[in-house]
């Protein structure tokens, strides 16, 4: 069985010192080892942005695609080979701006992959513009007078879109984050994990200290039941979504793969590409 070190490669990330993404990377590597994966059985698909580079920093199969499209690529990979573990990842711009459509539909579809968003509430790689996660009043290069648009609430959106696994974490909580990613990988269906991963260069508001002061761990809330959707929604609203832990999980709903009629039980990429002549003749006869 592979150790987390075997998920490391020798590429030095181009993230700024202190970036939250380093911890997310470490948590993904540990989680992969903890659930018993071999590097060749993991595919990490990522979008564009600082965090999108993560697929190149983990020793596994990795696909660094185009901006906002990590989810459809990842779903395609999983459909091609259901035996692979597939993790899609990217930033809040990738997942909640240009790729928001895919996020909602991937949640609805419930293909068995894990989606990890590194949420820093800013566009970092393009050097500091507003993000759909930026708070009203947040000043950036593209909102010099402060953002006047409402920030999206991905956790609430996910619940309303019919998510079966919704979790949130904070990059410095390496142990909790690792456990959540493991739970996400083990969940049979689409698992959505939003990680607060501070940008130390461009976001001077939502800093490590800010999160430490404002986040509430769900396991400190008495009687919190992650299988209760109503409670999950109420808790998110009450805490302005600033909670960490598994917010909601529905283990009863089958994943997409289990529901597709006729879908190969083994990896589809190993199926025969040829047809019996009789099968072909039958197909052709329908046009006579």
């Amino acid at each position, binding site marked *: 069985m592979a150790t987390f070190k075997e998920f490391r*490669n020798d*590429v030095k990330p181009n993230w700024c010192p202190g970036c939250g993404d380093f911890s997310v990377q470490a948590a993904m590597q540990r989680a992969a080892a903890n659930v018993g994966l*071999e*590097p*060749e*059985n993991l*595919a990490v*698909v990522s979008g564009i942005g600082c965090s999108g580079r993560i*697929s*190149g920093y983990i*020793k*596994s*199969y*990795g*696909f*660094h*695609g*185009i901006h906002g*499209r990590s*989810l*459809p*690529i*990842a*779903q*395609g*990979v*999983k*459909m*091609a*080979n259901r*035996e*692979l573990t597939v993790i899609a990842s990217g930033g809040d711009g990738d997942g909640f701006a240009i790729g928001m*459509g*895919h996020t*909602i*539909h991937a949640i609805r*579809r419930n293909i068995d992959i894990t989606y990890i968003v590194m949420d820093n509430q800013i566009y970092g790689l393009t050097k500091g513009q507003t993000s759909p996660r930026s708070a009203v009043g947040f000043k950036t290069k593209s909102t010099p007078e402060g953002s006047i648009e409402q920030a999206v609430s991905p956790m609430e959106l996910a619940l309303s879109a019919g998510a079966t696994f919704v979790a949130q974490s904070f990059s410095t909580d390496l142990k909790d984050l690792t456990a959540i990613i493991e739970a996400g990988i083990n969940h049979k269906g689409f698992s959505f994990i939003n990680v607060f991963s501070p940008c130390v260069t461009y976001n001077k508001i939502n800093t490590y200290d800010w999160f430490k002061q404002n986040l509430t761990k769900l396991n400190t809330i008495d009687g919190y039941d992650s299988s209760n959707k109503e409670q999950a929604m109420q808790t998110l609203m009450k805490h302005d979504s600033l909670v960490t832990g598994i917010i909601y999980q529905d283990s009863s709903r089958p994943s997409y793969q289990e529901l*597709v*009629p*006729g*879908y*190969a039980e083994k*990896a*589809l*990429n190993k*199926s*025969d*590409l*040829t*047809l019996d*002549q009789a*099968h*072909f003749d039958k*197909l*052709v006869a329908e*046009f*006579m």
Partner: protein
Amino acid sequence: MINQLSWKVGGQQGEGIESTGEIFCIALNRLGYYLYGYRHFSSRIKGGHTNNKIRVSTTETRAISDDLDILVAFDQETIDVNYKELHVGGIIIADAKFKPVCPEDTKAELYIVPFTEIAAELGTSLMKNMVAIGATCAVLGMEISVFNDVVDEIFGRKGEEIVKKNMDAITAGYKAMEVLLGEKLGAMELEKADGQKRLFMIGNDAIALGAVAGGCRFMAAYPITPASEIMEYLIKKLPQLGGTVIQTEDEIAAATMAIGANYGGVRAITASAGPGLSLKMEAIGLAGITETPIVIVDTQRGGPSTGLPTKQEQSDLMAMIYGTHGEIPKIVMAPSTVEEAFYDTAEAFNLAEEYQCPVIILSDLQLSLGKQTVQPLDYSKVEIRRGKLVDFEIEEPENKSYFKRYKVTEDGVSPRVVPGMKNGIHHVTGVEHDETGRPSETAVNRKAQMDKRMRKLNNLANTFHTPVYKNTPHEEADLLILGFNSTRGTIDEAIGRLETDGVKVNHAQIRLIHPFPTDEVLSLVQSAKKVVVIENNATGQLANIIKMNVGHVNKIKSILKYDGNPFLPHEIHTQCKEMFEYGNV
């Protein structure tokens, strides 16, 4: 006795015009006649004039006819819109229900049959279509029993009684028309057909069947006219083979999901029309730089923007060759018949894997939707070739380094592994990268990787099975006519008339649009006195591509049509005569 017939049925969309044509055609196809259909329809579910024009012939035909012998009308608009196509001796059969009137200059004779009333008396007015088929039978002097099997197949699951009622409706239509026709019964009797078994299908059926035969097991697509039939077919058939179709949230997801599936090792396709292709462009670039195989179908329709969504056009050519920013290797194929659409689609999956690049199958609305007689398809001609896909155990790389997925090779194609393979780990990125897939911006690496990718297709025009369809009987031709996609049959027919006029004409349809088969086309251009390119667009895109590749800029002329309708044979014939002053022979 006649050896060909042009028949049209028209009415309001949603009235069963489609199924009337369908039943008529299937029966005639089984008798061995060649059929070629053209659908005139609008972008709405119900209402609006629609018609189905069908050519019936005892010999192979792939063109809409210039005129019309029989028009079956379910509303006045059908007469008003179409009567001018009818010649002297032509017949209009109209439903008494709408009190049909013919304009003064109508050349054809009007026969009024109470389609709806007869059908209603037999049980339901829905069967008015069957009454119309019966009436047509009387004009053709055809036994109505030829419809027995088709009616049984279509209505059999609804019970024997429904089958009988529908046959009764056909009989009643025949009898009513028989009385009206008097001695003109069987006025348009068709010569007996050869009785050979052939297929009756649209180009989209052939593309979808070609995908199944070519090993495609996954499709990601978004509905759009005129491409949706491809996904609708595959969602029915792929589950029998373990595969499936996902209807995605948008065209971008369709293209990128198909890329993901191909990267995952499954042969995957996406299909769309112009607007969808515009949205897929960034993904096509991704497939190009990551060297991921993908097959994409573009069923061209009237553009730009929403344009003419249900009309014929061939204006995506440049976009398909040059679309996506930056430069990538890409293959663009353009089948010119339904048969070719089948074989080319199957082959597209081989080329995509052999060259590890996007392959676009270009179709057009008339090829994709024109239902027609198709020669039997031969599965034994379909090959599966997977190029440099690694199917053996990979040795552990030195120093635990990454697999050289983008190794610089002489032919530009590198060994390809799919996720899950031990010791095959590499990185894939749309960022310029080195041999292992790691991002690299160095000038030396950039040039090496660009050169590697771009040389992959250097020799394709020489190895591709049929880059150009040729019907070139003349060593020295007066005229060379060039086209692509569905214009083939219409050009054929126009050439027949030009030859009768005494003009020696060679014909070529470009089947490999990119990379362009320069040598082959150049020699055709050189061996003709005049050259004209026929295409359904306003700017002469194919003509420009030919000029760019073979020169002869002043020699190559264009005949263009971009009003939404396919060419008719007489249009090409007349315009060639005028353009080249062949005189009024």
